[in-house]
């Protein structure tokens, strides 16, 4: 951004009362911005303290936490791998659904659709993103799972399984990816496209050969935000993915995810000093760490691969 010369000019010439008013508003906005930072710091602090209690209790070693493939805190089995594995599986399935759908929808909307059509479809897409996730959960349980059972066989597909939860999650995050990718595609300068058209390129060639590569940083960022949304999604997996930890790579088996476990264990009022209680904070901070890394990676990608045309 260029430095704003006009602002300092006005500041000099403003009357005293207006200046104090400005200062007040500036302070107020500053305060609101600080609240969000303060809240984040508070969450990290609480998570860290409780997770520290979990590991310092002497019952769990960090090594066991990251290497054992059994998770059952009540009988002192503390391996996060089964939960992590199913979180990654549901997220991956979600991305397999949402990624292609999102990109294709975005290309269509930014390159092919008429403005009139786009104006109608975009709000509808956003409605899809506004459906409560519990509805998606029941959709997975009562529609996608029976559907999968019909295709792959009743005995192969469990009632609760990671595939149906992943697919529902994919439908949930697809509008977000489509919308963010569309923003990225639309931001590609028109001059680039016109140059390509001038050289005789077809619409398909322009879309896939010029616009898509130019917007790749934005699209990758959209993917990563979608992925971190999928990792943190709770209600769908709590309803549809299963309620028992299970270390499996079969998407048709039930397997509880990290968020699903937190939701199930904190559903009742568990004792405040029990291992179960502390374990959900250990998982919570681990989840937080995963999404934090994903967000940092997406920032880096945007910075690194951004094509600057101005």
């Amino acid at each position, binding site marked *: 951004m260029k430095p704003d010369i006009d602002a300092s000019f006005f500041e000099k010439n403003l009357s005293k009362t207006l200046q104090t008013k400005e200062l007040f508003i500036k302070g107020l906005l500053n305060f609101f911005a600080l609240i969000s930072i303060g809240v984040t710091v508070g969450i990290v602090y*609480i998570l860290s303290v409780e997770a520290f209690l979990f590991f310092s209790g002497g019952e769990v070693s960090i090594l066991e936490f990251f290497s054992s493939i059994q998770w059952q805190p009540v009988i002192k089995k503390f391996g996060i791998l089964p939960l992590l594995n199913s979180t990654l599986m549901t997220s991956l399935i979600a991305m397999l659904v949402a990624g292609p759908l999102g990109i294709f929808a975005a290309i269509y909307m930014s390159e092919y659709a008429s403005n009139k059509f786009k104006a109608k479809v975009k709000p509808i897409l956003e409605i899809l993103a506004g459906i409560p996730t519990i509805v998606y959960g029941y959709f997975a349980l009562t529609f996608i799972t029976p559907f999968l059972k019909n295709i792959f066989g009743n005995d192969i597909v469990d009632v609760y399984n990671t595939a149906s939860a992943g697919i529902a999650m994919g439908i949930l995050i697809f509008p977000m990816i489509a919308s963010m990718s569309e923003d990225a595609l639309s931001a590609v300068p028109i001059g680039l496209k016109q140059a390509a058209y001038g050289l005789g390129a077809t619409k398909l060639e322009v879309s896939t050969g010029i616009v898509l590569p130019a917007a790749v940083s934005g699209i990758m960022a959209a993917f990563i935000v979608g992925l971190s949304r999928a990792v*943190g999604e709770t209600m769908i997996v709590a309803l549809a993915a299963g309620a028992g930890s299970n270390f499996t790579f079969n998407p048709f088996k039930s397997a509880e995810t990290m968020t699903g476990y937190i939701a199930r264990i904190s559903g009742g009022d568990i*004792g405040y000093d029990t291992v179960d209680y502390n374990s959900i904070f250990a998982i919570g901070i681990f989840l937080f760490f995963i999404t934090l890394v994903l967000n940092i990676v997406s920032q880096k990608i945007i910075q690194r691969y951004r094509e600057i045309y101005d």
Partner: protein
Amino acid sequence: MKKILVFFMILASVSAVFAGGSKESTSSEKTGAYTWILTESDDSILPGVNPLEVKGTITAAGSSTVFPLSERMIERFKNEGYSDNITLDSIGSGAGFERWAVQAESDISNASRPIKDKEVTAAQANGREPIEFRLGTDALAVVINPANDFASDVSLAELALIFSTAKKWSDVNSSWPSEDIKRFIPGTDSGTFDYFVEEVFNKDKEPILSAANTQLSEDDNILVRGVEGDKYAIGFFGYAYYAENSDKLDVLSIEGVEPSSATVDNATYPLARPVFMYSSANIMHEKPQVAAFIAYYLTYVNEEIRDVGYFPTAKEDLDKAKMNWMKAMEGKL
């Protein structure tokens, strides 16, 4: 766009944290007078209760087994004129005692097992001396999918195998199919889980929790759905949930005895167990509406209990519960 999304994600998680952490304020609205007491009573021990005159809120939480029964009694209580709020949470017996004894937030704790010593201690630390009210008897139902045509009767030893080390049905009985057993069991916070572990595994949680393909949930409807949807599934929960879903599930006989009111009454069904409600004298004094509700519950429970799917307790047990009520309210009426 992204920043906004991230902000909302944080906001959502924050609000979740606050929602979980906030304690309900225990408002003790003293109504003072016991205007709800009737001169005539339908019960030989307890005074009559006029729900129209009962004022003030009541909070109850605990066992999902007791939930359908309490829900029915609350419905009847309201139909007869009680117009304030009763909250009833189905969170498991352990969680119910956590809320009642440790946090001292709820007025009534529903339980499908007797209160544990450490819970008594916790309650006493909060000035609550637990009073037990026996409500009735549940026959813990072990259920299978209707398409399961091989199992119909199991011994307790087989039951222990099915819910622990056996991976496939054929591991339990060689004539059964070589298919994975899919287990659906109540969560570890539930009284039903505790009871099952006590009866079948001699209080050792290790085998049942180590079993493969096991889904645990405090929500019995999740278990119902699981067993309903898989031919090789098995699960267990309070009899009421079987009674409500008997068109979708089959119940197993245990040691040759099928759960029914006859086998529960003559004590031949091996997995019959008492269900309870707990409160304390000081709560009943401070909030007379709680005393009113419990008296009403005990007076009419036997008219509703079979319909909900449980079994009436022996008269002397129910009378003992009523005497407990009278003792708690001594000098107050």
